[in-house]
């Protein structure tokens, strides 16, 4: 009865790219899932249930694709769930998969999230025509840019902060062999010289559109204790949603994100997140979201988040390294992006992050958000049992 312990015992991801024309959709998922199984030293037979996540079905033009993908994911004869919570879905999928173990239902759950955006194109799939309304006049960046401008106005952040984040994440991405973008020659000047798409957002400060998948094997305590490789113990999970548009809504520092992070800290017994958490993988599709989320996630006081970026606190050598994997700014297979944040945080506390490993990381935050900054999913994973 009550909550059972759960741990990540296997992690896998694809090489992310603008178009993975070498594989089918099933092939893309299998690349990640097989790696996760191999990492967990398990076979398809060992898995009790499968939880799949992805963003809108229109992206690939397949309605409820889990029905077709069940065979490739070894789900025949097993329970299979399909989660969709907008951009936060990769994280939510991980949370749902964890709950299957925490609720005492299963011992070994495979969870996979993906997007094969190249089957269509993001600009089409994200702005399907709606009668009586003019076409979206400015795209996704145009939607978020005014709120970023509000953030800058509220916090008096210097204008180069967005470029600093992009430089840091793109350089981190060079250490991640799976990252979509590997921009070896990137400099602060090249970022600042890139086109101002949606002032204050520059081209080099936006995420790419990627094909990719991520998978994890989640296991109960007995299985995790017996695992050959070090598990990442789940200390906390939470989801929060709020309506996207209502009178008086704070879209810069939404309450849903504040509440969600406060919830995971409470579950994990964390009172000083900046001090206690060793690193974080945070969903930053436009570079300015790093300082915004630092405040939303209670790592910095309101209006102070940009100082963490400026001081280098969020760099690999800072006191709270953020997005050592390169983050969403380097790879953005939308449905998988959230799970990549969760999986990368698990890799850190397992000491399995390779060249982008934070030395001695023992407690890490994974974060995803979606919609009009209205859907949140987060978890905290640790090297030690909770």
């Amino acid at each position, binding site marked *: 009865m009550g909550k059972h312990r759960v741990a990540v015992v296997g992690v896998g991801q694809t090489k992310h790219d603008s*178009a*993975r*024309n*070498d*594989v*089918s*959709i*099933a*092939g893309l998922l*299998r690349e990640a899932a097989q790696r996760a199984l191999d990492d967990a030293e398990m076979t*398809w*037979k060992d898995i009790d249930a499968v939880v799949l996540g992805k963003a809108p079905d*229109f992206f*690939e*033009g397949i309605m409820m694709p889990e029905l077709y993908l069940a*065979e*490739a*994911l*070894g789900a*025949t*004869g097993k329970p299979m769930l399909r989660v969709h919570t907008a951009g936060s879905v990769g994280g939510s999928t991980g949370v749902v998969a964890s709950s299957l173990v925490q609720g005492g239902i299963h011992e070994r759950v495979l969870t996979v999230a993906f997007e094969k955006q*190249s*089957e*269509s194109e993001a600009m*089409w799939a994200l702005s*399907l*025509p*709606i*009668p*009586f309304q003019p076409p979206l006049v400015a795209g996704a960046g145009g939607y978020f840019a005014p709120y970023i401008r509000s953030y800058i106005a509220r916090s008096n952040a210097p204008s180069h902060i967005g470029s600093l984040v992009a430089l840091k994440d793109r350089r981190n991405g060079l250490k991640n062999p799976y990252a979509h973008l590997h921009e070896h020659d990137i400099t602060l000047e090249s970022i600042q010289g890139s086109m101002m798409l949606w002032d204050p957002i520059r081209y080099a400060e936006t995420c790419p559109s990627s094909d990719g998948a991520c998978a994890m094997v989640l296991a109960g305590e007995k299985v995790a204790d017996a695992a050959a490789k070090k598990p990442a113990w789940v200390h906390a999970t939470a989801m929060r949603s709020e309506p996207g548009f209502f009178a008086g809504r704070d879209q810069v520092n939404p309450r849903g994100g504040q509440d969600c992070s406060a919830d995971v800290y409470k579950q994990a017994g964390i009172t000083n997140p900046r001090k206690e958490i060793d690193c974080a993988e945070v969903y930053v599709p436009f570079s300015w979201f790093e300082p915004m989320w630092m405040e939303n996630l209670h790592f910095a006081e309101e209006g102070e988040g940009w100082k963490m970026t400026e001081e280098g606190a969020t760099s690999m050598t800072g006191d709270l390294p953020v997005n050592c994997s390169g983050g969403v700014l380097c790879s953005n297979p939308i449905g998988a992006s959230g799970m990549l944040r969760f999986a990368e945080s698990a890799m850190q506390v397992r000491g399995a992050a390779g060249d982008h490993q934070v030395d001695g990381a023992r407690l890490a935050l994974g974060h995803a958000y979606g919609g009009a900054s209205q859907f949140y999913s987060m978890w905290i994973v640790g090297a030690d049992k909770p």
Partner: protein
Amino acid sequence: MAKPNPSDVEVLSAPLTIEYPFRRSTGPVLGAFFTGLREGVVIGVKRQDGSVLVPPSEYDPESAEALDDLVEVGQAGVVTAWSWVVKPRDKHPLDRPFAWALIKLDGADTGMLHVVDAGERSRMKTGMRVALQWADERVGHINDIVCFLPEG
């Protein structure tokens, strides 16, 4: 000015079309199947127990093992299940009454879904033999098979 919402509003509606030319990468196994269709052969894949899946699956539908042992199968076979479309829909492959059928090609162990151009329902029967009809121009697509026809 403020007043209760009028209850008699005429609700507006408009056509909405969602259309996209999805272009899909096939991966090697499905790619071989489509290449075969273009070249005028039907290709299946062998499972570990030796049975043959047509169309080929990249992964075993039951054990999930990756499959890549491709084999050529016959171009005629047996109807294992079918339904009769009295009035074809606009998007159907044929514009006259026809059967949807699972067809187990010679050398295959599973049925492939396609259409049988049988003319009338009375010509359809479970267990009947049908033969594949190729399109004149083939590009490597499921539509390279126009239909199946009753044999004899």
